[in-house]
């Protein structure tokens, strides 16, 4: 599988990663090499095999659906880059 510049640009947008135009070719080459490597899995017969979605070797317990923490807005906002009046501020999203 060979990725081209425009595919890399699209993936980068989906991942919300700014990638400079002059890096697209190099990235396309690197990512294509990784995809070539992982494509060996196509040679494995997985007919009738259920995908493994959990590695846990035991039944995991449910917890009570109850509030166990909270009431600490200052702590929650302590690492926010731009806290304003107890909220996270972001650029305007609605005109």
């Amino acid at each position: 599988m060979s990725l081209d510049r425009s595919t890399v640009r699209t993936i980068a947008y989906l991942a919300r990663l700014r990638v400079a135009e002059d890096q697209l070719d190099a990235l396309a080459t690197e990512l294509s090499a990784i995809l070539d490597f992982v494509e060996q899995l196509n040679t494995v017969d997985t007919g009738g095999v259920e995908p493994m979605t959990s590695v846990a070797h035991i039944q995991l317990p449910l917890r009570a659906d109850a509030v166990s923490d909270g009431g600490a807005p200052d702590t929650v906002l302590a690492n926010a880059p731009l806290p304003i009046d107890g909220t996270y501020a972001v650029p305007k999203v609605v005109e």
Partner: protein
Amino acid sequence: MTAALTGLTLAEAADGLACGHLSAVELTQAYLDAMAAARDLNAFITETPDLALAAAVAADARRQRGQSLGPLDGIPLAIKDLFCTEGVRTTAASPILDAFVPPYESTVTAKLKAAGAVMLGKTNLDEFAMGSSNVTSCFGPVKNPWGRGGERDLVPGGSSGGSAAAVAGRLCLGATGTDTGGSIRQPAAFCGIVGLKPTYGRCSRWGIIAFASSLDQAGPMARRVADVAILLTAMAGHDPRDSTSAPLPVPDFAADLAAADPSDVRGLRVGVPAEYRVGGMAEEIDALWRRGADWLRAAGATIVDISLPHTQHALATYYIIAPAEASSNLARYDGVRFGLRVPGETLDEMYQNTRGEGFGAEVRRRILIGTYVLSAGYYDAYYLKAQKVRALIARDFAHAFEACDVILTPTAPSDAFAIGEKTDDPITMYLNDVFTVPASLAGLPGLSVPAGLSRRGLPLGLQVIGRPFDEATVLRAGAALERAAAFTATPMA
């Protein structure tokens, strides 16, 4: 005096503290001095000497009152900078978390602190634990204490490279690491120390910065198998805040190991998988592996030939699943709630600028691969396929464990390489994890024990893989290897 103190193993230091020959303060000061003298290794991102000394004073006071918290009370440890530590900067070695100060403590470090352990500082790592060499850290590479002063500095392995270098360099008695595809075991092998990745679910992931949630597992690193057993006993246990944490009792691994005779493993069946004899395996790695089997046989074990037929596809499976989970986990770094923010005209631009500047090259690469394999039209071909192959890999192990109790393999395909080597091509770097990734995919415990020196005089490790939640048997087999290998070489020699 300092050299004598930093030459102790964790178990020896614990004994010294218990019988009053040592104080936690003198022990801690000796390690703080050693850290200050070894800053060239770049093993620590953040040193916390004041907190360490205060904790040591408190440990000594407890002991004087007859209220010791146990073997770890007053023991100086290094903590990988992937564990959130309340009030102490936690970076994951990434620019995006450069100024992050967690308001909470990870469960594993909270357990260690509750057992009286003294945190010396936060150790360097590959950015977001993505790497096998510690060269992707935004704080620069860590030097392996082995080969220091040689022609070229060597990597300590990764991603827990700072922890491994700190243990090997006698800068702490033990350390925490995390292992997603080999990040405890491979650096342990490169640095000549012991490292254990427990069974997935044995230690809580709560408060550990996530990389790939179905693979990440915290574990101990130290100089001896007995030390690792003491640390695991304190770190393990069910945590309601991690839904994948196993609600199982934690054995006293240290006491069980102490009660066993490492020269006698009669009845133990040791599997040797044919498929790990990969093409082009270095002769000295192959020889070490055979020697390891001979040692266990001499101690009474039975060696069993086993087959893990899907081994050759483990790396490819891992390099779909781990980036997929990483791309999802790392979506949280959006410049809004914590971490770096790089402004933009619109919300989208702010996201893109923040993430474009905040993540390093390897992290970006994995996010992009992960995004691609999860995207519409490719999900089934890549991600779903990898999950199916993962099921086959796990099934291989389940079958193998019908015929054996533990599996013996080399830990890594080579000894430590030079800083700057293997960076041209991501795949070459990924091959470091060829022997550790399969057990990670299956969620199994794996232990690396130093077992000899390479022709270049660098440490090599052997890996013991066990059944789910059977760390006790893994540790017992590891102790038998350790005894037979009689690995006494140090990087200082």
